[in-house]
């Protein structure tokens, strides 16, 4: 166990080092001044420039520079945005939770809806109900997320007017960003009607979450269905049936447990898709998340923001993936090396 843990920690640290190295090299790869890309401050005169170069050890070799870059990253000194002039650590701290919030709710929806429906389809495999669910999931899986979000906007916001078009919460409510998660922030906020604010925030959440989760639910249904069908035909299920167990007992004790195991590593792959979809949907709903922030940064050529934003998103995704892999390894020791299977 400790060996596995150690291996995962080494893997994690190495991956992060590679990512940090990548983000460091971006300062050189991006067009423009290296120093400006690294700090986000355009030096006004030679003196300031020399001082900054001194601070970032630009005159030393790349290795020394990278070492100091790492030190700056760890101490939270991430540089400043070209456009807003704000410290990047502050901007990421506000933007990242918004994305995580959106993705989490979408994932929760996918688990809550996708797994039971997938189990049902798997148990009734090759019947009319199964074909219906399977076709529906195939259709949901094929939607380009930006088009789906646009359709939702056209239908729900413009035609029927039942959901707001953009943002996280009505401007009437003043919610100070404490944790960055809007639903939690509302609980901490003073001087507002929490119930109304909560309802308003949920209204704002509805469309973007739905747009992302349609695709996640569809792939979750497909994964679960496949897994259940595979487990259903295993000899131990037949053995359980001959022992006279009821359908419910067989399902809950034997099929469900074994079917859920291979789903977990597949969820790790889903996270990448989920975050990508969340980032695209954010731009459509003006959701103040990291995806919207990054895409604004690329439109305005805000290189320091891109450098840090890339690191932040990659860090988040890699951490989640490795944690899920580790968790999977812990609960399923029979798996020497996890296998990744297609959706």
């Amino acid at each position, binding site marked *: 166990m400790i060996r596995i843990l150690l291996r995962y920690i080494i893997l994690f640290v190495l991956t992060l080092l590679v990512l940090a190295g990548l983000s460091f090299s971006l300062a050189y790869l991006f067009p423009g001044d290296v120093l400006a890309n690294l700090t986000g401050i355009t030096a006004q005169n030679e003196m300031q420039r020399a001082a900054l170069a001194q601070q970032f050890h630009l005159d030393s070799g790349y290795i020394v520079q990278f070492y100091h870059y790492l030190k700056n990253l760890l101490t939270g000194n991430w540089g400043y945005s070209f456009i807003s002039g704000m410290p990047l650590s502050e901007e990421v701290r506000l933007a990242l939770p918004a994305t995580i919030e959106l993705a989490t709710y979408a994932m929760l929806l996918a688990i809550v809806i996708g797994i039971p429906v997938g189990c049902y389809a798997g148990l009734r495999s090759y019947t009319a109900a199964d074909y219906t669910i399977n076709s529906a999931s195939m259709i949901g899986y094929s939607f380009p997320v930006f088009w789906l979000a*646009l359709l939702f906007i*056209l239908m729900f916001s413009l035609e029927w007017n039942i959901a707001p078009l953009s943002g996280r919460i009505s401007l009437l409510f003043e919610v100070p960003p404490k944790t960055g998660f809007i639903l939690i922030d509302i609980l901490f906020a003073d001087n507002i009607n929490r119930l109304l604010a909560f309802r308003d925030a949920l209204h704002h959440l509805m469309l973007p979450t739905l747009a992302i989760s349609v695709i996640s639910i569809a792939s979750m249904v497909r994964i679960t269905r496949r897994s259940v069908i595979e487990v259903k035909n295993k000899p131990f299920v037949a053995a359980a049936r001959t022992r006279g167990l009821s359908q419910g007992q067989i399902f809950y004790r034997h099929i469900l447990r074994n079917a859920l195991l291979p789903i977990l590593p597949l969820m*790790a792959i889903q996270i*990448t898709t989920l975050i990508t979809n969340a980032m695209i949907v954010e731009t459509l709903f003006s959701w103040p998340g990291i995806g919207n922030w*990054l895409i604004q940064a690329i439109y305005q050529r805000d290189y320091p923001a891109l450098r840090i934003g890339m690191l932040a998103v990659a860090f988040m995704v890699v951490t989640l993936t490795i944690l899920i*892999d580790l968790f999977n390894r812990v609960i399923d020791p029979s798996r020497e090396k996890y296998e*990744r299977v297609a959706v």
Partner: protein
Amino acid sequence: MSQFSLYEEESHPTPLQRTWREFRASHIAFVGLVVLAVFFFFALFAPLVVPYDPIQQNLNSLLIPPSWERNGTIDHLFGTDALGRDVFSRIIYGCRVTFGSSLLLVIIAMGLGVTIGTVAGMLSGVRSSVVNHLLDALMAIPTLLIAIIIVAVVGTGLVNSMWAITLALTPQFIHYTRTFVRSEMKKEYVLASRLDGANAWQLFTHSILPNMIEMLVVQGTLALSIAIIDVSALGFLNLGAQPPLPELGAILADGLDVAYLAPWNVALPGLSIFLMVLAINIVGDGLRSALRKRVSR
């Protein structure tokens, strides 16, 4: 099977024929294949199909609704956009750009992935472990992020976005090839060829590759659907194909300005992306279940 059977045919279908039979037995999969073939035809022969030049602007016919609406004309089957360009022609050309570039990049990614994956699969020990772990890290980084970085470094454009998506798709090909080659290397028929004195290259081309092609085709269809969605998403975000080039995502983004006035400018390009992806997914799914049935019988 009995030795003397008067009624059964003596010819044995090849694995490919058996897969085709299983595939054809599923009507949905066959319809998907036909739809895909139509898109492929559009991609190949777009200049012969379209009635108008896709970038020809016509100020006399702005925002004409599609032909099935009351104000529409049959001259413009899908209507026109805000610059008077024929939407039908643009979509056909869009299929060509989106589908063609996706197909191309999937083939490149497959070639790269199979090469690296085979080398990694035949290696063992520390080197393969390093490759494995680096790949897992690469697989985790979202395509959009890679695309944003590449766009920031070298600028926007269809080719640049294609590189980004190729880079994002390659690791999964490497992964599957690696796993496949590794499991295959342990089998006895490979050992037999080895005892016959086959070198690594001969082993690969004569023993492993023929067995791998089916897996590659299935993975390729999956990757193709992802590639189409990604190409059009980047085009939509204005990070990929640039406006005059008719790319489905870019057409959709163009139509966004007049979405309320002329919803067909948003609905139709999106619908064609959706149909294309759906057809590919159906064909991929049909292929997979056909292979599964063939193996289990």
